[in-house]
């Protein structure tokens, strides 16, 4: 039996990466995710891995590119402004069809913004976050346990679909401690015949590149990539439904907002309001089908997010605007309280009753 221990979200994520077989970490410190690098600077040498504090975020993600070219499980982590710096690398990883794990423990923006928790990188994360047509698999942990388990899933998904998996967390989930059971997973073994491992004089050389000067060839590359994205959408979409059996008011929330919303849903239920929550675990692919299905019985959706309606757009697209969607949000590092979310639920319930 695995031991249950108290750990910070950032540290649980770091240990889970090691358990998932990651031996290559490249990063640059930034609040509120610095514990990831600090933890791995101690642990990587113990397991024969590489911890390298790069000269910048841009350098770090290109080191991930290099390690991934060689077929290794590699990761980097940062927080919002640092992720913007990494956007060039995200695009190159996608263009070269390389697996990677990138962690964003979000803080408030734009610009240098602040260091308190935020979810305002939703669009950046779910739309790729760099130039060109591409997606990242975006996983949204709502607990310290999920900081660990989704990191491990992220490595598997990245390898399987040859793309970046991003952990989109926030300062609260990263900094908080709670119970976690660290599993040693059996990583999905994916052959990497494309990796640059040396030919040994026995095979044709492999080439990993994002440069295709022939438009026809580049179009073909893009289309093949999007065929793979379609598979991800069909197979890997994930969400948690909470109190949804008879829900008339449906909250959509992820990460720390989902933790707050959970309290609000319970409080609403205690008052006899049929509230429920769909918590996306994958933000891309977004659980659109589940929302479309819910829209058959739900009267009103609430998008509880720490951004200015970035996720609300995806909800409206999913339900084809057949139901009202109300934004419940705070930004700048302010976290919504269960009380104000409950108030929004009560207002929506009144409207739905009219």
């Amino acid at each position, binding site marked *: 039996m695995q031991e*249950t221990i*108290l750990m910070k979200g950032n540290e649980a994520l770091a240990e889970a990466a090691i358990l998932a077989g990651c031996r290559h970490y490249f990063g640059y410190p930034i*609040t*509120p995710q610095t514990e990831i690098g600090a933890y791995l600077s101690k642990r990587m040498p113990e397991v024969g891995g590489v911890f390298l504090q790069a000269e910048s975020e841009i350098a770090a993600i290109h080191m991930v590119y290099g390690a991934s070219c060689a077929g290794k499980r590699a990761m980097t982590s940062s927080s919002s402004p640092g992720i913007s710096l990494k956007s060039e690398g995200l695009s190159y990883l996608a263009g070269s069809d390389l697996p990677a794990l990138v962690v964003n423990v979000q803080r408030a923006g734009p610009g240098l913004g602040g*260091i*308190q928790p935020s979810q305002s990188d939703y669009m950046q994360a779910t739309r790729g976050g760099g130039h060109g047509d591409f997606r990242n698999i975006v996983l949204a942990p709502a607990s310290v346990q999920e900081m660990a388990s989704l990191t491990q899933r992220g490595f598997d998904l990245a390898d399987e679909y040859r793309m970046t998996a991003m952990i989109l967390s926030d*300062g*609260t989930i990263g*900094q*908080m*401690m*709670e*119970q976690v059971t660290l599993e040693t997973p059996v990583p999905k073994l994916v052959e990497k015949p494309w990796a640059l491992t040396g030919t040994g004089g026995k095979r044709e050389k492999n080439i990993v590149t994002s440069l295709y000067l022939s438009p026809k060839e580049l179009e073909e590359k893009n289309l093949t990539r999007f065929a793979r994205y379609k598979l991800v959408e069909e197979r890997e979409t994930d969400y948690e439904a909470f109190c949804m059996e008879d829900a008339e008011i449906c909250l959509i929330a992820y990460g*720390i907002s989902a*933790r*707050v*919303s*959970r*309290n609000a849903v*319970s*409080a609403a239920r*205690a008052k006899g309001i049929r509230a429920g929550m769909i918590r996306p675990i994958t933000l891309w692919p977004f659980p659109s089908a589940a929302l479309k299905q819910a829209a058959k019985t739900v009267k009103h959706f609430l998008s509880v997010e720490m951004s200015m309606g970035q996720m609300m757009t995806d909800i409206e697209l999913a339900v084809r605007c057949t139901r009202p969607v109300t934004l419940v949000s705070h930004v700048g590092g302010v*976290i919504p*309280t*269960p009380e104000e979310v409950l108030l929004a639920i009560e207002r929506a319930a009144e409207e739905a009753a009219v």
Partner: protein
Amino acid sequence: MKEQKNTTQQVLIAGFGGQGVLFLGKLIAHAGVLLGKNVTWLPSYGPEMRGGTANCAVILSDEPIGSPIVSEPDVLIAMNLPSLTAYQPRVCAGGEIIYDASLVHESPAREDVTVRALPATRLATEAGMDGLSNMILLGAFLSDCLHLTQEQLRQALEHTVPAHKAHLIEANLHAIAIGKHELALAGQNATVRTERPRRAG
């Protein structure tokens, strides 16, 4: 305030950086785990950590914990005046305020909560244990709000104290005992409060 059974207990601990605020919270969190509770511990992580005010929120519950944020604590442990001033209005009626009376010379204005004023810094200094005022306040918390066996307390300390400071566990236990003893002595003088209200979720 009595120990809570089958419910949720929300604790806010606040003071200056360096007073062991986060450590005190961690110890309570580890104790919660030993008691089989769900636990969250959330620190302030702003620039104020470097010398300014520090605080952390701990929730112990028999239910799954939603938000880890504590806006209305059942218990406030205040280690300086700014913390007491800032957070005492938020303590829920029937809750408890424990504070370091060596550093805070103003009594809390609240009359609907239990108030425990311990001269923790002075007691720590007198016992030759400068820096352990946090453990003296913990002694009061453990007497009133969370009952642990001596063995559980030792285990919680072993989980919380880093290996290179393991030699300090005995001193910590001693300081906790001083806090408990002080509370027993001052017991009758504590402000008696009204019935404890029920918390939702």
